[in-house]
């Protein structure tokens, strides 16, 4: 066997520079580095992605609001009136709720007790009728009856307020 050190001449041995040059090409080919250009591209993509997400979110909200408004405005007159009554009573009750809780029948004032009792009956009747009448039920008789009950309740609440039975 020939000693490799004798066989190979110094010109056969790669220099350190040669080795580095070869390794640079090998490593760049096998393990490509993430250049600043790639990072900038990633950052730009991220910004575009975020912007696109916001646009999608706001567009969805806008579309939902528009759709809701369209649905509401396309409701029949009776249902819109129901909603108006309910909204008015709810607003009224919110303002006077604490007062109404404290309004209990008192033997000293029979009329006031009677009004509180009437109010309870009215509430029960409205709840009962609302259960029977869902929003798609357009039975004219039921609607008419519900509107009358709402009207009565509002009038009664107004009366109680005038009589000082509800303190604000």
């Amino acid at each position, binding site marked *: *066997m*020939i*000693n*490799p050190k*004798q*066989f*190979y*001449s110094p*010109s*056969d*041995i*790669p220099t350190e520079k*040669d*080795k580095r*040059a*070869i*390794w640079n*090409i*090998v*490593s760049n*080919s*096998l*393990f490509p580095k993430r250049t600043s250009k790639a990072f900038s591209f990633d950052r730009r993509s991220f910004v575009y992605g975020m912007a696109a997400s916001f646009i999608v979110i706001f567009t969805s909200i806008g579309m939902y609001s528009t759709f809701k408004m369209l649905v509401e405005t396309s409701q029949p007159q009776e249902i819109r009136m129901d909603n108006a009554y309910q909204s008015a009573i709810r607003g009224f009750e919110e303002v006077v709720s604490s007062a109404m809780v404290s309004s209990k029948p008192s033997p000293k004032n029979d009329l006031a007790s009677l009004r509180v009792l009437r109010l309870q009956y009215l509430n029960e009747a409205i709840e009962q009728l609302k259960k029977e009448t869902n929003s798609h039920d357009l039975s004219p008789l039921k609607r008419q009856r519900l509107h009358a009950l709402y009207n009565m309740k509002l009038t009664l609440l107004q009366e109680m307020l005038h009589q000082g039975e509800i303190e604000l």
Partner: protein
Amino acid sequence: MDIQKSNTDETFLISRIRNGDTQAYKILYDDHVELLFRFLKQFRKNDSEVQELVQRAFIKAFEGLASFNYRSKFKTWLFQIALNEMRSDIRRNSIIPFVDIDAADESVSESNDESFEWNSTLKTLFDQLDETKRAVFMLYEVEGYSHSEIAVLLNIGESTSRTILTRTKQWLRNQLNVTRSIQ
């Protein structure tokens, strides 16, 4: 003991590379780049050609490391890849021998015992050999591979490897004698 340690180190390095440690491949590269470069330099005198072959061999070795089965040393496997790359470069399906190897007389007496006193004259004569003879001679005489390993490396029969080596040595000796007689 050293060989065993070296194999263990190599196995450990390769398992690290397989687990994604790219720094381990740099260590494996540093251990082998010189061995491969000087070997390939005997076939290509142009440094840039040698560099390109070395690069391709290391890239292919890394890409195929998952299929490396530890049956041979990494060096043998790397040399095989490099030789295949060289072969594909010269667009040959197999190494074309300068003698009819199929008809080679396998009874040619081997003269492995006769060692060469390597000198500059022999080196000049060596450069006149074709690639197959150069490869077999170097792999056996310089790199220390067995004929069975050379057979795998060069995709030739083991007996063919023996025949080529014997004839190459005979040729070198004859040429050396002729040169000396002229001088």
